[in-house]
């Protein structure tokens, strides 16, 4: 078998990306349709001296990876809707304590137990606001396995760069489908490692005093600097504080370090977008149908293009505004009740020309589903 070409499920592409990025600790709990990620890593991690643990529940899995990250490991967990709900408190803890970690959510139908073996994209807003309190978050997604790999690597890089949890919002269709994955050679993709403090032993280290660029060099648990980590608002030593000035500054720092870097974080692709009169904005597996349709219609001379979003949070508002500025109509293609639609409407000049092409029955939205709506919008009937 040629070494670098693989024929794998999307979940396996995520595993390969995580290992390429330097994952060395995984904790998880079995849940459809993400389980293959845990299964594969239970085999692969010990082969490279890494650790895999199946915890007693979803919450514990999230907590365990945060603990392991503090000792200097690159960590991740994977889950789906119900598990993602359970992890939210601990995700907020990682936001507050600024501990790098990656959470893959292979989305299935919800709410509740929902539709475990079928596709959905219903957790977009939960990824943004699932945990309580003001905060910022990064969420990435992908529509094909090469991009699942790439976005997984990016997720680790961003987690380490911004010291934040990063959510990978995949879905059942991409997670379970098999297609080609070419694993890049070592060095082909950039790998970001954690910024560690240069403060010498016995010199007062301030774990929570941001540098001028907003970054916080870390010190591993077990190393020379002993400090406190808490989910309470905390001062530069990590000690609890409710001093209004400290509370205000910390919360602004947590939001700004991500929202101010929206451009650096934004990931997207354009398909036939040049001179497009009708723009399909999509992401994840539904983007596959949007691209399929756009290419077909282009062949027939219609000016249709796709803006495929690969970073959903922080939402690339400026990008969407710019790319959609000349469109006659924008169709948001997604498998939920319009979670990205709301963001797109807020971004563009004429929100009344933004429409939702969705499907919420557990089936992958098809190119003809989109085409029907498009024809209505174009005034050509169904």
């Amino acid at each position, binding site marked *: 078998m040629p070494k670098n070409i693989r024929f794998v499920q999307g979940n396996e592409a995520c595993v390969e990306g995580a290992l390429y990025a330097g994952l060395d600790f995984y904790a998880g709990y079995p849940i459809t349709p993400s389980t293959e990620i845990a299964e594969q890593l239970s085999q692969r991690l*010990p082969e490279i001296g890494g650790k895999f643990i199946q915890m*007693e529940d979803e919450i*514990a899995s999230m*907590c365990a*990876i945060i*603990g*392991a990250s503090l000792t200097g490991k690159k960590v991740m967990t994977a889950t789906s809707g119900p598990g993602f709900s359970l992890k939210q408190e601990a995700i907020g803890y990682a936001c507050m304590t600024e501990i790098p970690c990656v959470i893959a959510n292979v989305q299935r139908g919800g709410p509740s137990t929902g539709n475990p073996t079928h596709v959905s994209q219903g957790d977009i807003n939960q990824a943004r606001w699932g945990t309580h309190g003001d905060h910022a978050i990064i969420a990435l997604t992908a529509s094909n396995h090469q991009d699942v790999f790439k976005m997984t690597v990016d997720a680790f890089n961003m987690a380490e760069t911004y010291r934040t949890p990063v959510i990978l919002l995949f879905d059942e269709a991409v997670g379970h489908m098999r297609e080609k994955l070419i694993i890049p050679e070592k060095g082909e993709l950039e790998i970001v490692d954690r910024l560690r403090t240069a403060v010498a032993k016995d010199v007062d280290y301030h774990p929570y005093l941001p540098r001028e660029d907003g970054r916080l060099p870390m010190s591993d648990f*077990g190393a020379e600097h*002993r400090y406190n980590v808490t989910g309470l608002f905390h001062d530069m030593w990590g000690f609890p504080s409710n001093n209004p000035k400290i509370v205000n500054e910390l919360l602004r720092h947590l939001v700004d370090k991500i929202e101010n870097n929206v451009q650096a974080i934004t990931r997207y692709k354009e398909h036939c977008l040049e001179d497009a009169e009708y723009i399909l904005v999509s992401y994840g597996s539904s983007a596959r149908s949007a691209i399929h349709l756009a290419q077909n219609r282009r062949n027939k001379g219609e000016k249709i293009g796709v803006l495929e979003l690969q970073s959903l949070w922080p939402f690339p508002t400026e990008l969407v505004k710019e790319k959609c500025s000349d469109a006659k109509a924008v169709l948001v293609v997604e498998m939920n009740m319009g979670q990205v639609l709301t963001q797109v409407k807020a971004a563009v000049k004429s929100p009344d020309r933004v429409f939702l092409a969705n499907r919420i029955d557990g089936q992958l939205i098809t190119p003809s589903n989109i085409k029907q709506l498009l024809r209505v919008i174009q005034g050509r009937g169904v």
Partner: protein
Amino acid sequence: MAVQDYLRQRFFPHMWCPGCGHGTILNALIHSIEELKLNKNEIVMVSGIGCSARISGYVDFHSLHTLHGRALAFATGVKLSRPHLNVLVPMGDGDALAIGGNHFIHAARRNIDITAIVMNNRIYGMTGGQFSPLSGPGVKATTAPYKTIDSSFDVVELAKAAGATFVARTTAFHVKECTEMLTKAILHKGFSVVEIMSQCPTHFGRKNKEGDAVNMLGLYKDNTAKLGSKALEEKPHLIPRGIFVEKERPEYCEEYDKIIAYAMKEKIS
């Protein structure tokens, strides 16, 4: 090293009420660590939420003050990723056995080398005196104005059944015994549980006519007896103190290291 060298004096005074047993437990723990001459860089204290959990802020170790009930889950991540670290997990009774009960039994089941300290004051102190799963029936609390009807867990029996390989119980009155048991628990390879009964005069004592701290400590003296003692034999209704379990069983991180060795060999061959 002097005892003070194990404390972050910058963060004192502590936030516990006058007469609280938790300070005594901190004292006993620091003495135990001093006696063991552990390297501070190799100690990680992980705590949850509650009065007890604040202990981690005061010690000069790597300290992780986490979420309510989840300390053992975080600690499992720390320990498995760096098994050479000594991981201490002080928890309150509600923290350890209500919201954190699942993590408690599973950490015991894995026999992961963590020292769990249950600082049992039979009440939720930080939220103002609600009953806990260790209050037991007939206790007055702010959420049990007519007294509790809930039975309590026996921490020792629960830990034993779940698979802990070191299980002990003592009280904040028996300070030297606390130090001895903590020392043994830290040295023990595997999951160890030390239940330390700790008075909460503010919320438990006041509501339940147990008086002030001195009086509550007196009750620990009078109502408990050492395992194997004549006093316990004569008055079996007393609460037994001592080491209930001390045995060997494969430890989780060591077992995982064997998995790594096997997987690496398999991959090469």
